[in-house]
């Protein structure tokens, strides 16, 4: 294995941080099983694995949030016991979470102050904040309130907050999930600089190209165990994926030719003010989606995708019926049930609590969206046999793994529940399918099944609208892509002609006519 790029060589033998046989048990379930990890100074170490592989448990243990059942953590060769995150920070371990813990109505400086120990006067802290953010090329105005900031800027706050404690070791949990490609590039510059200063970074991701570009070492977890530690630059994306999944992944195949037919979904100048004061206002959204076509909507989370889904599904009604036309019928004013009767189907981002009622059985969750049409309800009475039949058909067609015939939704794994939800909607043969983040947090096997199902549905003549933050996913299955930014939608372009750079710029708001200040749109 060529190891010339690895930082491990030119930094002494003592790892900065080591875990030895680290094990975490929940009942009989082993979230982490005897994990050995060596992280050296001046190393960017990737932690790879599918959802549920045990990545989060491992880093939370290293950050002191979880106490290990067995095994130990060594810091610069000495065994340490971390009673909590403040303990970890005192040793020089910092962490940037995937989900930010920021108060929207406080300023940047106030948010940072809340995360520090508070011995420093606010004014000094504020000055140091500005200095740290400038030094690392992470510009922040300490006086701005968080709700005015973009997701990328919010992440900067978290990173700067961690850097202000001058950590020797920094953990980043899927930091690029919320960034445009350009923002990700900027982040990589910062991370390389931190590395050059002699710090170590543990970088959690499932984007393999990114890991190959950035990381010196990669540790792969599967089912709670360490599979391998390797040099990612010496591997291919496919070989890394095989190690993560433990086998080959089904390849998604598009039909040779798809018949693009009549418009199934028309959106005409849709504008909508959000209920939530910090929500995003939809501004003049227009597009046309034809049968046999898959349209992708890219964009950084929080740019109006949820609001658009609510408007298209009928969870929020538009005043003007003509703004949304489903299969030739003006539907802006129709309820979600009426829209389902027109042949539309919807798959929201949140599986538990939105797409399904977590503590209800699958048959009842089949009824949740199936009651509108078909034979599930007769004269107000529920036809239990019909709901169970939907569960069985979905299970069979989409390979839903479950412990019994009709379990509660919450007991299924994320991938299996998502397959159930997608199956539930697709088996109703919709003419329009609107789906938000179809494979978010889903294992690679299930993701392939779901993408294939969307392609097959379109091949059968349905119109499919896919909103996703995953550009690779959109590139794989869509015919055209549009980008959402600040509640506006760019004109769709053919996927084959859309470069990542162009899309990234659109995701950052560059070439859409953005309003003068983001402040004005959000207020």
């Amino acid at each position, binding site marked *: 294995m060529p190891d010339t790029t690895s930082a491990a060589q030119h930094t002494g033998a003592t790892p900065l941080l080591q875990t030895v046989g680290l094990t975490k048990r929940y009942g009989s379930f082993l979230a982490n099983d005897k994990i050995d990890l060596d992280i050296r100074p001046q190393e960017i170490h990737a932690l790879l694995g599918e959802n549920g592989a045990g990545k989060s448990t491992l880093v939370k243990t290293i950050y002191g949030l979880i106490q290990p059942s067995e095994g130990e953590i060594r810091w610069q060769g000495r065994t340490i016991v971390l009673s909590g995150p403040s303990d970890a920070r005192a040793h020089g371990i910092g962490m940037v979470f995937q989900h930010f813990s920021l108060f929207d109505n406080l300023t940047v400086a106030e948010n940072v102050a809340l995360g520090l120990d508070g011995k420093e006067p606010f004014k000094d802290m504020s000055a140091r904040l500005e200095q740290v953010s400038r030094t690392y090329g992470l510009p922040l105005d300490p006086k701005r309130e968080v709700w005015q900031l973009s997701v990328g800027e919010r992440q900067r706050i978290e990173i700067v907050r961690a850097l202000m404690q001058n950590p020797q070791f920094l953990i980043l949990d899927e930091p690029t999930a919320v960034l445009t490609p350009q923002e990700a590039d900027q982040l990589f510059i910062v991370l390389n600089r931190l590395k050059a200063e002699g710090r170590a970074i543990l970088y959690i991701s499932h984007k393999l190209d990114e890991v190959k570009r950035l990381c010196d070492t990669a540790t792969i977890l599967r089912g709670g165990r360490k599979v391998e530690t390797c040099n990612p630059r010496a591997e291919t994306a496919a070989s890394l994926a095989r190690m993560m999944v433990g086998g080959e992944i089904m390849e998604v195949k598009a039909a040779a030719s798809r018949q693009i037919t009549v418009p199934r979904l028309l959106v005409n100048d849709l504008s909508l003010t959000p209920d939530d004061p910090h929500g995003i206002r939809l501004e003049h959204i227009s597009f046309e989606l034809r049968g046999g076509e898959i349209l992708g909507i890219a964009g950084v989370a929080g740019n109006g995708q949820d609001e658009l889904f609510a408007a298209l599904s009928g969870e929020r009604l538009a005043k003007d019926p003509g703004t949304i036309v489903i299969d030739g019928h003006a539907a802006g004013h129709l309820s979600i*049930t009426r829209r389902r009767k027109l042949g539309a189907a919807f798959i929201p981002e949140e599986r538990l*609590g939105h797409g399904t*009622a977590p503590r209800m059985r699958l048959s009842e969750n089949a009824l949740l969206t199936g009651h509108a049409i078909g034979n599930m309800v007769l004269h107000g009475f529920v036809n239990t046999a019909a709901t169970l039949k939907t569960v069985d058909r979905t299970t069979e067609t989409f390979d839903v793994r479950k412990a019994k015939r009709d379990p509660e939704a919450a*007991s299924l794994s994320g991938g299996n529940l998502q397959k159930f939800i997608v199956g539930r909607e697709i088996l109703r043969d919709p003419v329009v399918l609107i789906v938000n983040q179809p494979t978010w947090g889903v294992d690679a096997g299930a993701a392939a099944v779901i993408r294939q199902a969307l392609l097959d549905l379109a091949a059968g003549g349905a119109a499919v609208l896919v909103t996703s933050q995953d550009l690779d996913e959109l590139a794989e299955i869509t015919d055209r892509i549009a980008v959402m930014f600040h509640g506006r939608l760019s004109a769709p372009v053919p996927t084959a002609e859309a470069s990542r750079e162009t899309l990234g710029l659109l995701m950052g708001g560059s070439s859409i006519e953005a309003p003068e200040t983001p402040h004005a749109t959000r207020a």
Partner: protein
Amino acid sequence: MQLVLEKRAERSATIALISPLIAIGLTIATLCIVFAVLGKNPIAALAVYFIDPLTDGYSLQEIAVKATPLVMIAIGLSLCYLANAWNIGAEGQFLIGAVAGSWLAVKTQGTDAGHWVLPAMLVLGAAAGALYALIPAICKVRFGASEILTSLMLVYVADLLLDYLVRGPWRDPQGFNFPTTAEFDPVATVPTLIEGGRLHLGSIIALFVVAAGAVLLGRTIKGFEIRVVGAAPRAARFGGFNANQLVLLTFAISGALAGLAGIIEVAGPVGHLQPGISPGYGFTAIIVAFLGRLNPIGILIAGLFLALTFIGGEQAQIAMKIPLDVTKVFQGILLFYVLACDSLILYRFRLISSSPKVQSGAH
């Protein structure tokens, strides 16, 4: 070693069934301590409370009579609670139903009105209860007012209205100034089922309500809507169910059932309108609803059990001079334990070792 509460993957059906029994066991254990502190023999007191009423026919009938309003109200309340609508004011809806039905009885008193009077009274009682329950429901839906507070406060309004009517306009002229209406005419009275007994037609209506509740919740799409709106509001909206509409519906149904129970109580066992027609049925029904797991059959059983405590409490006061308020203490402790035991449906206790070494040989 450490005792932790651990989340279960699925709700435990077994615990859901036995949790009320555990709660009753714990309540009785606590009650024994209360009896002992009062200087009574706990075993003898428990016998008077829970065994003696089951041994003679009169008491058995009386249990059914007391259970009738409890069950009817609790069925309605269970619909509200399942839909995440917190109707605490069933006592007020019960009283308003009694007042509205009694109005017709008072107006037709001494006339030759026929057998239409009683059915009309029942309809009036149910309608008034429903309308009265809609006040907090509309305030919640339109203005976001907490239905817990508004429904509870309306209890006192209903109580004082009843008090005013029987002391003023509706007072029986021959009643020696007692605050009561005259005895209702036979056509305005709920018929008894056994000659000379206390068991009346209302108990049959209550059984019918239980059956209707079971069908509604278990078999119909409306019942499903009620359950989803309570269990997962966002999923319910995604399903196309309107939560506000269900708040209005469940409040109206529960108000109607409470009002119906009220007029049946007045036109049946009591026979006239007077203050104190309810020993707190509307509040005890809240306990019945939860003890019965918000399930109609469970509510029937729980209603009979709590009716037993009313009768037992009266007998214990007569036989052993135990204050009647012990019954209310019992009911309060019971609700506390029921809610506490319910956490075991979704969680379980687990003893775990705090030292990592002990588990090293586990696999």
